[in-house]
């Protein structure tokens, strides 16, 4: 099996902040509805769109939306080495940083380790309104309370794509069969997905494009999510936070 390195490119200039990716993600991955008392600090949003502005007011004010998800760091992702019981793993076959809810004991060390805050803890027992559990996606197991979860590039779809390949009698999956839900849902095609090891894939090309950047690149985490913007101030988002008195240009 050839080693894949799945990645994503997100064009911030195209993102309208409609939230379709968030909804599609939550539907696909059986994320339960909010329990009483949930806030934006305790919720589970594998995919989450942040409004980001240039820090100015009045007519100079500019805002964009930045979809945030697990940045799928490279081989030595910050969350992998810290997990005490091997519940986090970079899949050698796909490069996907996988989180195993069944192995996780909920120490949340990986959450502390993640600079992107892309990991979420199940603070509550998962609960669906009566009947709604029928709408759960059978390709993804619901998680239990007390474990950490995060984006895994819709791994259930990877499984389904593999089965479809077997059904066709093929060894390799059809790239069109494996597209994460957020990519599929994005109305402006701002999010693209593909194999970074394949130079022909649009994502690999987008990664090389000028104006493409990754978040906190200097940390050396080698994320596989590439952002893109033609605007200089937007590209500053990828840098470390500046003190409050400083603003983006």
């Amino acid at each position: 099996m050839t080693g894949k390195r799945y990645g994503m490119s997100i064009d911030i200039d195209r993102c309208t902040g409609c939230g379709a990716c968030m909804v599609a993600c939550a539907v696909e991955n059986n994320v339960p509805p909010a329990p009483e008392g949930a806030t934006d600090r305790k919720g589970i949003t594998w995919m989450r769109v942040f409004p980001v502005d240039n820090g100015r007011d009045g007519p100079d004010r500019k805002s964009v939306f930045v979809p945030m998800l697990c940045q799928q760091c490279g081989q030595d992702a910050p969350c992998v080495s810290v997990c005490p019981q091997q519940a986090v793993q970079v899949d050698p076959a796909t490069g996907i940083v996988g989180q195993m809810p069944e192995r996780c004991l909920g120490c949340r060390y990986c959450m502390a380790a993640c600079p992107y805050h892309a990991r979420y803890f199940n603070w509550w027992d998962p609960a669906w309104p009566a009947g709604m559990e029928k709408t759960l996606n059978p390709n993804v197991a619901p998680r239990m309370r007390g474990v950490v979860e995060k984006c895994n590039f819709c791994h259930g779809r990877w499984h389904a794509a593999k089965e479809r390949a077997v059904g066709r009698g093929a060894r390799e999956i059809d790239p069109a069969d494996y597209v994460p839900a957020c990519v599929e849902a994005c109305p402006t095609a701002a999010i693209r997905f593909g194999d970074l090891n394949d130079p022909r894939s649009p994502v690999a090309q987008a990664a090389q494009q000028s104006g493409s950047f990754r978040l906190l690149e200097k940390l050396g985490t080698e994320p596989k999510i590439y952002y893109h913007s033609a605007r200089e101030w937007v590209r500053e988002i990828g840098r470390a936070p500046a003190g409050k008195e400083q603003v983006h240009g």
Partner: protein
Amino acid sequence: MDRQLIARGVRRCSTPQFLLWILPWAALFAFGLYCAGLCLVKGLNQTNMDNRFAFGLWIFVDLTIIALGAGAFFTGFLLYILKLKDLDAVINSAVVIGFVCYSGAVAALLVDVGQPLRAWFTFWYPNVHSMLTEVTFCITCYLAVLLIEYLPIVLRNRKLREVPGFLVFEFELHKLIYVLAGVGTFLSFFHQGSLGGLFGVLRGHPFAFREGLAVWPSTFFLFILSAAAVGPSFILFTTWLISKLSGKRLVRPQVLQLLGRISGLLLGVYVLAKTVDTLIWINRTSPGAGFPAQEYFAWQPFGTWILFAEIVVFGLAPALILLTPRLRLRTNWLVSAAVLACLGVALNRFVMTLQTLALPTLSFDRYLSYWPSWQETGTFLAVVAFGVLVYSFSFRYLLLFPQEREFRQEPAAQVSETAVMDPVGRS
């Protein structure tokens, strides 16, 4: 009514008085157990921790009390390995404090994890590259060692040692205690270090990240040093406090001064190392990761004052006091310096855990604050109450300070001999 259980030669308050003291703590403990039960049954939504503050009060407290509990291993090390015989006077108390701190920390950790039923996975499927694995292994092993070290103290209880098996076992075990002290030192050394490493390895948080030796970041060594430095200080402080609370002389002043001197010495070394480390971090490590260090202190209330307090007020100052023989002779100075040192280590642990999480890493992060919920605080108080209870019972029924008995008889030595020596029969 419990006279038979109290060690010979020491005086303890009456049973009702003792119960009166125990009662509020027991109530607090019960309340804390209820809080912990809520967290276990209903889940961690009972806490105010959240996805950003993945660690909260509990981890901070765990780190702090484990550092304070370092007195157990360090005193054992000094007494049994380096043969500082004077510390015999406090070793029992140190072991009990260590036991209390570690068992409290482990209990809090079991509430803190989301799936305690799977806690054993860490042993079964360890990821040896994780500092937390090292911490888990060492802390559980060391807790077992502490339990074994605590056992002889318990078995020496007046009633229990009447059982011949207990007596003989205690006697034989005590002969081998230096082995356990050695193992304890080894384990403590590593887990104190890996508790520091826990945050030092967080590449994603340049505020906490440090370079280091081999797999260990510098915080690994700083934590060992600081724990070793404040361990004796905490023993000093608790001994003084218990002496005040019980109104009894427990150890000779020289013992406390010795503890103070050791603490001061190590604290001095720690402050030096910490300063060097901070300079390297500000000038090389942090900018290397793209984070100018001064930005960390632009988020109020975490200004540079916190760095100053950590190094100077709670580090250098107590170190100097403890290293000055004249000041060391004065109990007030000695104890205040010990308290400062303990607060310093608490502040350091706070900075490493909570400030690390509060500071933003992404440019569009908000700076967040966190305040523990009552369930969280209650669980923490249960740990405190548990400690007080275990210590109170130990102090009452076990002989924690062997010198205490001598003081009971000492005043008699000053009585003029004539009263005894001039029997009526002769005159």
